């Protein structure tokens, strides 16, 4: 049985002391323990940004790729070996800016992976430019007079497209976040958690601002109700709802047809194609005897 500390490693963190990213890291580690995973069963994929450094800080397989491009890598990994617990750890810039197109199309594919977005409403690693979720009006280095354009609402886009697990977490509630993560990983198909992660260096609001506003969804909130979920993520209210916003019956998972052809086996385990098979296909290109 995996122990808590199986996922611990001793890589020195590059995050600012006190950054809420540490809470997300802890939540992920706890969730993996709760899920009884061992490090070799887990693969974390990230792009570039502060959030994207997370995979370095726990014991597991990891693919820290290009800015904005975690999702394509994750889809390739998942297609190759669906037995891995594949999780994308990304930022609002990484996933909604540079990588916006991949997110849209990941929704279409429904791969069995979990996407965790550290949403700090900012480009933190590059020192505080606006991100696609920065509220309009907020002053940022390139947006010296305040952000002039509207933010994206990715949870709404996910809900519209029938993503089977859409949640919002808060880095200030690591236990709640851990529960979300456990449920997300258990969900077969794409699960997506947008995590409110206030940046204590570039953020404009104190941590308490978020603490005060965040509110767990009521127990009687019906996660199966798509239009209600949509309303929830579109309404502007004093409170920010956290929890599972939408959960749908499981759709077919990416590649399900292909899996049948290869007897559900991970691709690296397949036997090589027989040379005879190629030769016989080649006969189709040959003139009649």
């Amino acid at each position, binding site marked *: 049985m995996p122990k808590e500390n199986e996922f611990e490693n001793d890589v020195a963190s590059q995050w600012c002391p006190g950054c809420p990213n540490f809470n997300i890291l802890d939540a992920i580690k706890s969730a993996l323990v709760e899920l009884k995973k061992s490090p070799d069963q887990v*693969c974390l994929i990230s792009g570039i940004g502060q959030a994207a450094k997370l995979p370095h800080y726990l014991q597991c397989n990891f693919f*820290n790729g290009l800015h904005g491009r975690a999702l394509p*890598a994750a889809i390739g990994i998942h297609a190759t*070996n669906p037995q*891995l617990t594949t999780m994308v750890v990304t930022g609002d810039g990484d996933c909604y800016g540079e990588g916006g197109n*991949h997110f849209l199309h990941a929704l279409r594919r429904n791969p069995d992976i979990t996407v965790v977005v550290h949403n700090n409403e900012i480009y933190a690693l590059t020192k505080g430019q606006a991100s696609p979720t920065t509220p309009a009006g907020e002053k940022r280095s390139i947006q010296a007079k305040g952000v002039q354009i509207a933010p994206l609402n990715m949870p709404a886009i996910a809900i519209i497209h029938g993503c089977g697990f859409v949640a919002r977490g808060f880095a200030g509630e690591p236990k709640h976040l851990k529960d979300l993560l456990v449920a997300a990983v258990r969900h077969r198909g794409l699960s997506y958690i947008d995590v409110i992660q206030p940046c204590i260096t570039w953020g404009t609001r104190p941590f308490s601002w978020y603490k005060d506003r965040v509110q767990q969804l009521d127990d009687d909130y019906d996660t199966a109700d798509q239009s209600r979920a949509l309303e929830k993520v579109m309404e502007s209210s004093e409170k920010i709802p956290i929890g599972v916003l939408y959960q749908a019956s499981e759709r077919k998972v990416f590649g399900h047809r292909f899996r049948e*052809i290869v007897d559900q086996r991970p691709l690296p385990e397949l036997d090589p*194609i027989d040379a005879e098979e190629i030769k016989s296909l080649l006969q189709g290109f*040959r*003139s009649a005897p």
Partner: protein
Amino acid sequence: MHDVNVVIAGAAGEGIQTIGAIVSKTVLDQGYAVFTWQEYESRIRGGQNSYSIRISDQPHNTPLIEADILLALNAEAVEKYRPLIKENGILISGESSEGSSIRIPFSKVAKDELGKKIYANTVAVGALIGALGIDLKTLQKEIKNRFADKADEILEKNRLAAEKGYEMADEGCRDLCPWNLPKRDGRFYHISGNEAIALGAAYAGCRFIAAYPMTPSTEIITYLAENENLGVFAEQAEDEIAAIGMAIGASYAGTRAMTATAGGGFALMVEHVSLAGMIEVPVVIVVGQRPGPATGLPTRTSQGDLLFVIHAGHGEFHKLVLAASDPLDAFHKTVRAFNLADKYQIPVMLLTDQFLTDSGFSFEEFDIDGEKPATFLADPDAIEDYKRYQLDDSGISPRLYPGQSKHLVGVDSDEHDERGHITEDLVNVALPMAQKRLAKNKKLKKDVMPPQEIALDEADTVLVGWGSARAALLEALDLLKADGINAGVIHFSEMWPLPDYSFPANKKFWTIESNATGQLARLLRSEYNVIFEGRIHRYDGLPLTADFIRTNFNAKRK
């Protein structure tokens, strides 16, 4: 025998491809080698395209431009392609055109005698086979095969249509048609570059392809997707960035993976090429060349992306660039691409071009033996403390994949330590890691095959070319010999890194390239210090041919 060249011309959507396919299969089944070449516009209907069939007793895999027989499906096609007809050649056309040698009202015949216009093309096929002097039987067999899963009536009508056309051509031909292609017992494979690459990939053990449609490489993923039992996971990506991203992800996860595109799509992949170099994940990228810049001439051919591909990617890392000469070579180069990508844990680009990918080449044998698929994974059981990027003088660290064993596999696009973790230690970690990656080149360079030398001994002039121009270069030697010139060929098909090689002394070198700026020449000059006496460039979107080379050589030499 003298080679016979048949050109079928018509608008997109009129059916020249179906006619071409049936005729060439029939000629093939008659025992001859055929080389088929298409040139077409970037549109779905209309315009004027052509489909050429070169018929010979031995494979001659390079186009002839002049036509013995031109079959033109409409009046405009007659106008546009008539100049190609040889002195004693003939024009076969339908009702709409003047001055034909043989005018057969295909549509009218189809309508009147078979009840439907759609049989017109089969009438035309019959006429062409008739004019070529091929047994009707061979054609009927091919028609039977091709329409086997159609309703009996359709098959029967097509048989009749073919017969009708055959007979009418026979009549019209009389003294006009000297051709006679009796059944012989040659047997040939007839295959295109893309088909060979798809098969080569499957043979090499590729299990994953992601691609975004782009001429002239789309057929590779299409073939693999259609032939599902090859067990290749084929995914159409949302864009080229995702395509290569998925392939690299798949490769990291332990399977052989590839993507295929054209120059413009490859341009979008460049950041990922650099990523593959950094994280040392093998990946194979087929780049089908077509004339640029930008969208350019999307359905035409070119060798214009050589230096771009060689230098693609920011930062410094090693890659391998191969260029296929013909489909048989493309098959083997594909296997080599996967093997060397794995061996050195680098990105490998395989260059093709529209000419190679769309043309049908003949081969007497298509021997797939040669370089065998070989993997270069480490043995997890033999390793105690696994480090993905363990320093090693060879530059090559042990490669495992996630989930394979208890060993954890971490890769990182930042400069990293031996376990793949981000480093800022410039002197002790970053520099040795960069040196490790760069050390690969020493062995890699030795694995690269030197250029092929042909007829160099006697030659005082040497034609230097690369990739799909090979057959044209070889045929040009014969033509030049007839002009009294002793020429040889040096042909490159492994482009980067360039192997140790010395150009022979006391010869005059000419580069022959399908581009305007002489990219091969620049490359060879910087690597081998060779001086070129002359240069022949073709960059109108059409392939190099022996005739083009000869004409330009004679015009340019002093």
